[in-house]
């Protein structure tokens, strides 16, 4: 169970292909040891708000980065984003929208709701890998985490 509390990246992705490609890219760059995957909006919310299936989780250990797809079953990415950014307990969690959508309104809505970044998935796989690499590098390595918890950081399996 502890694995929930040691998540570096929460990947919210319903499509198995996308999921596989994303995991492949992330792992190849060795940016995060602990990547946790949820497959729909509801699960993402339960995870982040420590409810339902993830009620054992604690707000003390938020993921260092949430990679959020927009088109999700049950709750959409934007709905998830809204809940996360409107709640003081989760507000500080960096959320990067990683989506296939090129719609401007998605972009605008995402930023309005408090997304920390908006990335469009390119068709070209090399480009995608490049993006994933730099994103991970930035948010996991470079960016200073708001609730930096060395204890948690240290308690890796």
């Amino acid at each position, binding site marked *: 169970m502890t694995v929930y509390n040691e998540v570096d990246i929460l990947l919210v992705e319903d*499509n198995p*292909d*996308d999921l596989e490609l994303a995991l492949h890219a992330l792992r190849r760059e060795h940016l995060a040891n602990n990547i946790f995957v949820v497959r729909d909006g509801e699960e993402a919310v339960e995870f982040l708000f420590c409810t339902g299936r993830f009620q054992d989780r604690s707000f003390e250990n938020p993921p260092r980065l949430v990679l959020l797809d*927009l088109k999700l079953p049950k709750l959409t990415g934007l709905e998830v984003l809204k809940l996360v950014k409107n709640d003081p307990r989760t507000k500080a969690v960096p959320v990067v929208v990683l989506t*296939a959508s090129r719609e401007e309104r998605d972009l605008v809505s995402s930023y309005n709701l408090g997304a920390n970044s908006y990335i469009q998935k390119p*068709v*070209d*796989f090399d480009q*995608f890998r490049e993006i994933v690499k730099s994103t991970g590098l930035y948010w996991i390595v470079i960016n200073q985490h708001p609730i930096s918890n060395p204890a948690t950081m240290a308690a890796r399996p």
Partner: protein
Amino acid sequence: MEFLKSLFASNFLPHGTCYLWDPQIVWLHVISDGLIAVSYYCIPIALIYLVRKRRDLPFNWVFWMFGLFIMGCGTTHLMEVWTVWHGTYLLSGLVKLFTAVISVFTAVMLVPLIPKVVALPGPNQLHEINRQLDLQVAQRSDRERELMQLTEELERRVQRRTAELESINQALEKEIALGITTQQALRASQSRLSSVIESAMDAILTIDESQRIVLFNRAAEKMFAYNAREVLGQSLNRFIPERFRAIHSEHIHRFANTGVTTRNMGAMNPLWARRADGSEFPIEASISQTEDAGKRLFTVILRDVTERKQAEARNHLMATIVDSSHDAIVSKDLSGRILSWNKGAEHIYGYAEAEIVGKSVDLIVPPDQLDDLSRVMQEVAEGKMVKCDETARVRKDGTLLTVSLILSPMRDAEGRIIGISTIAHDITERKRDERALRELTQALDLAPVLVRDTTGRILLWNRGSEKFYGYTKTEALGTLSHALLRTQFPEPLSDIEEQLHRDDAWQGELVHRRKDGTEVVVSSRWALYRDNEGKPPRVVETNTDLTARKLAESKLRELNLTLEQRISERTADLQTSNKELEAFTYSVSHDLRAPLRHIVGFSKMLQETCSNSLSSEGQHYLKRIEDGTHRMGMLVDDLLNLTRIGRQELKLQAVNLDPILKDIIADLAMDTAGREIEWKISALPPVKGDPALLKMAFQNLLSNAAKYTRKCAKAVIDVGVADNVLFVRDNGVGFDMKYADKLFGVFQRLHRAEDFEGTGVGLATVQRIVQKHGGRIWAEAELGKGATFYLNLSFVSQNPASDASDVKEKFYDCV
């Protein structure tokens, strides 16, 4: 003797020797000559017989000459026979000489004779002359017969006259015997005659050759107002108006010389006589001449025709009156035969007087009226006068007339009814007018009309009003109209009345209440009617029901409301479908690209992880998969762009194209690295449009220009304005103009993908953008020589009057 001997001497061979004594030849000549000789001797005999018998023949010596000449000819032929056996050629020559002399002489004599013979009358002429002679003879004998008859007649007359004379003689003898008795009878007769003359009604006067009056009867005394004693022995001239005297005496003179005993005077001109007081009067006169004891006397019988002339004048006047009347004045006998027909009748019925007088009056009466007519004529024949106000008659051309008639009996001097006079007045037109008026009145009765006095009291209430408002005439008359109808006025009544009295008319919409309580909206017209007799004016009010119209108007309004509702429904539908469309494109942009990414991603991974185990062929296939997926990605992106343009709202503003073009060219620099491209960008006026969309359009056009000039050694790309139209020109490969219509179609390409890559969406996008701006795009090109794209967009400063804000912008630009 010697000569005679030589004549008959035949020292020569006979002619038969020449014929070698061939009996056939010899006898041929002998018989022929013999026959000719006999014939020639016969002809003179005939001629001599003719001359003997017709001694009247002119030029008979010619016949003698002919006879002699033919005789000679006969003898020569006889000699021919003789010389066959006897060679006496001297004798035969002499005979020929004799014949020759006679022939020549005859021929010479004939020359002067020919014209004379030609002039002789031929048998035809002679025949004609004979015929005429016979005619003359016949006429002569006719005349002789007549003369004989005349002579006989004359003789008969002489006998008759003789007999008459004898009887006269006998009578004379008797008269002489009766001498005394006759004298007495004569005296009695004279006295009777003078009393007749004295008592005659006509004036009788006798004048002698020198025009002196020898007899003047009592009637003459009365006529001329002279006493006989005063005028006897005086000249006649005093009874003749001075201007006629000369001509009168000449007439008398001429009359005396004609030898005629009696004659009417004044056949040519009316005669005038003169009374003692100098007044003149018209007369009728006859004159006779007698001889008494060698003196010639003229007796004139005169009649004063003053009264008759007056009567004639009256008749003439009457006739003129009848003829000048526009009414048809016709007289007919009791059987209906027309006796007279005036000009008015000609005009009304169309028949000329000449063609109808004598015919039956039935001609102008319609067949169905004939019974009526005979009944009326019967009444008139009984002495009644019949008036008929309206009846039908037929014109000559068949059209029907309406006439009013007066039929009255015509009587002769004894008062017997001998005919019927008819006066007809044509009232066709009047009847037509009356009918029209009646129809008009009926039509007017349909519309509600009322007349009221100025106080509002109803004076007239027509059927239309009764029907429309429900009040009967008796209910309405006398009441105040505004109270009865509870009129609601659109403005104060006093204002309306003021206008009515100023303009004599008013019109407007009123609300009236019917008897059943329902309200009606009417268009009301008021007219002030003033007659010439100074009566107080009246108001004629005509009301037209507008209720139906108002109802229609409200229906229309309702319809308009529902229309708006329908529009908003339709708009909502459209909005819904727009939303659906958006969802669709969202889905496309999101979901359609996902598999592409996957294909690309996994093939890449395959390449990386299995590169060692993949053959070069397998590597190639993987590359093709990657390329295809890339193309698909581009297509999806372009399509999404295109649909986005359609949905996107235009943000119009004045767009300066120069910086936009510069940006685009800079962006293209990467793709065109290493190529020689000359960009010729003219100064362009600001365009009214959406900057983002315009940028997209020019991006497409310029990148196209760069793409299709790729194979040129030196590309020249020109952007400018000509005739208020923007253009982008390149010197690239161009295209065939016959495909120009496909240029702007989605996915339409004019080049192969191997030659020039592309999705076929770019120009469709440009066209979509230009059309969204209300503009137009077209292209001109030639294969291998480049293409020019024209964009008809509106410039901001082009028309200063079009938009105040434009002017302002321009003003700011200038500042």
